[in-house]
C-alpha cells in the first residue's frame, strides 16, 4: 500500500515538532540522569536512541495503513500482546521484585507497555460499533469493554505493576465517558467504583503497595523507606528554586538520593536542574501536545478516529499527570513512566506507536 503524496502533506507537523521537542528534552535530561560527576555511561542513551529509531520505523509502517484497517484487526494484536504478558509472568526477568520484562534476542521488552495503545484500539472499535446502534451506552453495553480491559488489568496486577494497571483501567473509564453513557450506567459504575477499592485493599494490593499509600498520607512515618525517597524527591524538586541548579549540576540524583531517577522519578532530575522556570515550559509543552492530540480527535474523519485519538491522548495525559504528581508528592508512588522522558525502550516505542496512530488519523481527516 502506498501513501498518497497529498496525505503526507497532511502530516500533523505541530504534533511531530512538539513530540520531537519533548523527546529532545528527555534525551538531554537522560544524559544528566545517567552520568555521575566524573563519568557518563552512554549505553542508556544509545539504547534510548535505538528504541526511538524502532519507534520511527513503526510510525512509518503505521501511517501507511488506514487506521480503520488497524482497528479492525486490533483484537489479533491484542491477543498477541496479552500472550506475551502471560509469557512474562511465566518466564520473565525479575527486577525490583516484579516480573515485567522479557528478553527476546537479547532485547528486553516490557509487553505491558504495548497493551496501552492496543487496548485503546480494541475498545475504540467495540465502542464505535455500539455507538452505531444507540446514542448512550446502557449497563449491558459496558460489559464487553470491561472484560477486554480487566483481562490485561489482572495479568498486569499479577506482575505486579500497579501503575500500568491503573492507567488502562482509567483509560477504559474515560473512553466510556467520552462516548457517552446512560445515567443508570453511571450509577452502576459509581456503585462498583466504591466497592472495588475496598475489595482491592483487602485482597489485591500487596503490602508494599499499601505501604506506599500509607506513606503518601504520612510521609514522616517512614523516614527511611519510601518516605525517605519521596522526601528526597521533594528536596530535589524544591532545591531547584526558580532557575534550577544548572544542567548536569543536580546533586540529589547524581549522588543517588533519588531512586529510579532515570525512570519513574526522572522529572525530579529535570526540576532540580532547570527549576520552576524550566518546569513551566516543560509542562506547557506537554499540555500543548495533549491539546494537539485532542484536536486530532476533534477533527477526525469519523467517530472511530475520534475515539482512538481521544483514548491515546488520555493515556499520555494520565501518565504525564500521575508521574509528575507522584514526584511532587501529590500522588502516591506508583511505577508509571513519563512519556518521551523516562528511560525505557518499550515505553518510548509505545508512545511513538500512539503518535503514529494519531498522525494516521490526522492524515485521513479529509478522506472522501
Amino acid at each position, binding site marked *: 500500500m502506498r501513501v498518497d503524496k497529498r496525505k503526507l502533506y497532511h502530516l500533523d507537523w505541530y504534533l511531530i515538532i512538539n513530540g520531537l521537542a519533548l523527546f529532545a528534552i528527555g534525551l538531554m535530561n537522560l544524559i544528566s540522569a545517567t552520568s555521575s560527576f566524573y563519568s557518563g555511561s552512554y549505553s542508556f542513551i544509545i539504547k534510548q536512541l535505538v528504541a526511538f529509531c524502532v519507534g520511527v520505523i513503526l510510525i512509518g509502517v503505521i501511517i501507511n495503513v488506514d487506521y480503520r484497517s488497524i482497528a479492525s484487526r486490533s483484537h489479533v494484536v491484542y491477543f498477541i500482546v496479552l500472550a506475551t504478558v502471560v509469557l512474562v509472568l511465566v518466564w520473565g526477568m525479575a527486577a525490583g521484585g516484579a516480573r515485567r520484562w522479557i528478553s527476546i534476542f537479547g532485547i528486553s521488552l516490557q509487553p505491558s507497555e504495548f497493551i496501552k495503545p492496543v487496548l485503546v484500539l480494541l475498545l475504540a472499535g467495540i465502542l464505535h460499533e455500539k455507538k*452505531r446502534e444507540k446514542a448512550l451506552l446502557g449497563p449491558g453495553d459496558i460489559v464487553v469493554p470491561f472484560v477486554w480491559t480487566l483481562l490485561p488489568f489482572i495479568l498486569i496486577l499479577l506482575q505486579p505493576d500497579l501503575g500500568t494497571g491503573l492507567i488502562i483501567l482509567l483509560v477504559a473509564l474515560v473512553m466510556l465517558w*467520552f462516548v457517552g453513557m446512560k445515567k443508570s450506567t453511571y450509577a452502576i459504575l459509581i456503585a462498583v467504583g466504591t466497592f472495588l477499592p475496598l475489595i482491592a485493599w483487602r485482597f489485591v494490593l500487596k503490602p508494599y503497595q499499601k505501604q506506599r499509600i500509607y506513606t503518601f498520607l504520612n510521609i514522616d512515618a517512614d523516614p527511611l523507606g519510601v518516605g525517605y525517597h519521596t522526601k528526597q524527591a521533594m*528536596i530535589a524538586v524544591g*532545591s*531547584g528554586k526558580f532557575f534550577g541548579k544548572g544542567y548536569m549540576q543536580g546533586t540529589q540524583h547524581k549522588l543517588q*538520593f533519588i531512586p529510579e531517577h532515570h525512570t519513574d522519578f526522572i522529572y525530579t532530575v529535570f526540576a532540580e536542574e532547570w527549576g520552576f522556570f524550566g518546569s*513551566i515550559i516543560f509542562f506547557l509543552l506537554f499540555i500543548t501536545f495533549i*491539546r494537539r492530540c485532542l484536536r486530532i480527535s476533534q477533527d477526525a474523519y469519523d467517530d472511530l478516529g475520534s475515539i482512538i485519538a481521544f483514548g491515546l491522548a488520555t493515556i499520555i495525559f494520565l501518565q504525564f499527570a500521575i508521574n509528575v504528581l507522584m514526584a*511532587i508528592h501529590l500522588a502516591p508512588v506508583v511505577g508509571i513512566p513519563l512519556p518521551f522522558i523516562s528511560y525505557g525502550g518499550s515505553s518510548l516505542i509505545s508512545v511513538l506507536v500512539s503518535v503514529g496512530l494519531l498522525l494516521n488519523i490526522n492524515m485521513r481527516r479529509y478522506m472522501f
Partner: protein
Amino acid sequence: MRKGDKPYNSRFYARPRGAEYEKVMKDGSLPDKYRWCKWVLILTMVILSLRLWHLQIMQGNEMRRQSEMNRIRIKKIIAPRGVIYDRMGRVLADTRPSFNLYITPEDIKDFNQTVDGLATLMGLDREEIIDKLKAASGFPSSFPVKIKSDISMDELAKVEANRVYLPGASIQIEPKRNYPHGTMMAHMLGYVSEISNDELKKKEYKAYSPGDYIGKYGLEKMYESYLRGIDGEKRVEVDAMGREVRTLDMKEPIAGNSMYLHVNLDVQMAIEKMLDGKRGGCIALEPKTGAVVALVSRPAFDPNTFASGITKEEWRAITTDKAHPLQNRVIQGRYPPGSTFKVLTALMALQEGLINEHTGFSCGGGFPFGNRVFKCWKKGGHGGVNVRRGIVESCDVFFYNVGLKLGIDRIHKAGSSVGLGKPAGIDLPGEASGLVPSSEWKKKTYGVPWYEGETVSVAIGQGAVWLTPIQLVQLSSFVANEGITFKPQLVDKILGPDGKTLKIFAPVVTVDMKLRKDVFRIVKEGMQGVVNEPNGTAYGSRVENVHMSGKTGTAQSSTLEGGRNLGDHAWFIAFAPSEDPGIAVSVLIEHGGHGSSASAPVAKAVAETLFTVKPEIKEASAGASR
C-alpha cells in the same frame, strides 16, 4: 445525534470544518466532551504550577539547604602530633598512619543492621558501640563517631568488603601516636588516649570533640598544647550511602610542634637494661643545668597500647597490677632515703660548726639512747670515726651523734633549703612532695611532741623522712655544684612545624645556698671515698678512668607481700666526674637489698656510658634506636 435520525455511517461521513463545526458536533453521535478536556488541562496546569511554586519558590531556600546538607559533610583531618626527639635527634615518639572505624549516624539506614553487623565483624560489644554513639549525642548526626581505633588489615578488609550492608560505617586513615621504643621512657613520655566524657565536659577541653586524642600522662600531658597541632578540615560531597564522592575544599592540618629533650637515649637504654625486671627508679641529670639525661621507672607500661585504644581488660590489668606500673617512681615514689640522707646531715653539721673535719665519735656497733640501743649496720662497730670516714663507711653511730647535735628542726630547715621534701619542679605532672619532718609538723599532724629518739633515726634517713629519687638527685647535684641546684628539665627546646625554634628552656636555679668552701670539700672527699677507696661502701662500682663520687643507702622497709618482708630499698646517689661533675644520678631499687650491691652498679653504667668509650654499648644502642 438523537435516536432515529439518519443512520450514522462513519465510512462515508465527513465532518465539515469551520463554521459548521459546532453544529456538526452537536448533531454527531459523540457528545461534546472537549470542553471538559480543556478545563481538565487548565486545572492540571494550575495544580502543578501552584505546587511547584510552593516547593521551589516558597520552600526553595529550605529545600536547597537540605540538599546541601544531604551532600556536604565536614570531615576533620587530624593533625599529626609533634615528634619528640632525644638530644641527638633520635626519635622517641612520632606518628604513623592507622585505620580507624567510624559510624556516621545520619548515614545509617537500619540501625540494627549496621550496629549488629559491625559488632559481629569486629568482635565488639553491641553495647560498647551504642555507648560511643550516645557519648556523641550532643553533636550533629553527620558527625562521625569513632568506634574502633587502629584496626588491623584483616578487620579493614572485612569492613570494606561489607560496606554495602553497613551504611554509615566508614574508615578513615589518621595519624596515630607511635612510640618506637615501647615501654622505654614510658613514664617520661607518657601516653595519649581518647578524651573521656568527663574531660569533654570541662571548660579547658572546649576545643576537643569525642574521639580526639589527648595527652594524659608524662610529657604528652604536660606539653599537650604544644604537641597537639591544629586539626584541618575538608568539605566533602557524599552520596546517599555516605561514601565520599569528591572533595570540595580543604583546610590543611598543621602538625604539632616537635620537642627536643635533654635525654640521651644511650644513657636511658643503659639504665633501662640495668633495671630490667626490677621495681625502682633512676634519674640522671646534668648538675650544672638541671637537664635530665635519663629517667627510668620500673615496672613500665607500653604507651602504644593506649594510643591504639586501650580495651577495658588491658586497662584493668594495668590499674590492678600490684607493682603499680603507672606510677612514676622517680617523681612519685616516696621512700625513706636511708644513708644517702647522711650527706645532708654531714653538710649541715659542718656548716653549723657542730663538728669539724677532725671531730670523732666512737662506734661500737650500737648507740644507746633512752631505753633502747640504735644499731650500726656494722655489727662489730667502726671504732673511732670522723666525718669523712663516717661517709665513706656509712657509719650510723657517727650520724646518730651528729643528728642529736643538730636537732630535728635544723635538719628540717636544712632539708627544705636544699629542696628536699618538696617537688623538684621537673616538667612532668604529678610530682610528689615527700617529707622531711619537723617538730611543728608532728605536733600539727599527730598532736604529740617530737621525741629525740626520732631525730636519731631521721639523721640516718629512717623514720618519718620520705623522699623521691628526684629529690635525692638534687641533693647529689647540690654537693656536686657546691650549693646550687637547677630545676630538672626534660625539654630543651620546642620547634614549630616549620623548623623554627619556638621556645628554649633556659636553666632555672632553684637552690643557691652559700656554705663554707671546706664543708663541700670534706663531704665531697667522703663521697669520693665511698666509690674509690677499698673500704668505701660502693668500691665495687668504681669506674675505670673516671672518678665517681657517691653515697649508698639501704632503707629499711616493712612492706609485706604474701606474709614475707620484701627486703630493704637500695639507694645510691652519685655524681661524676668528681673533679668537674657532668652528671648526677640517683638510683632506687625497691626491695633491692643493699645500695652498694644493687643500686651503685646502675650509676656505674651511667658513668661508663657517658665517660668511657665502650664499643659494645655504642653498638647496642645504635642497634636499638634504629
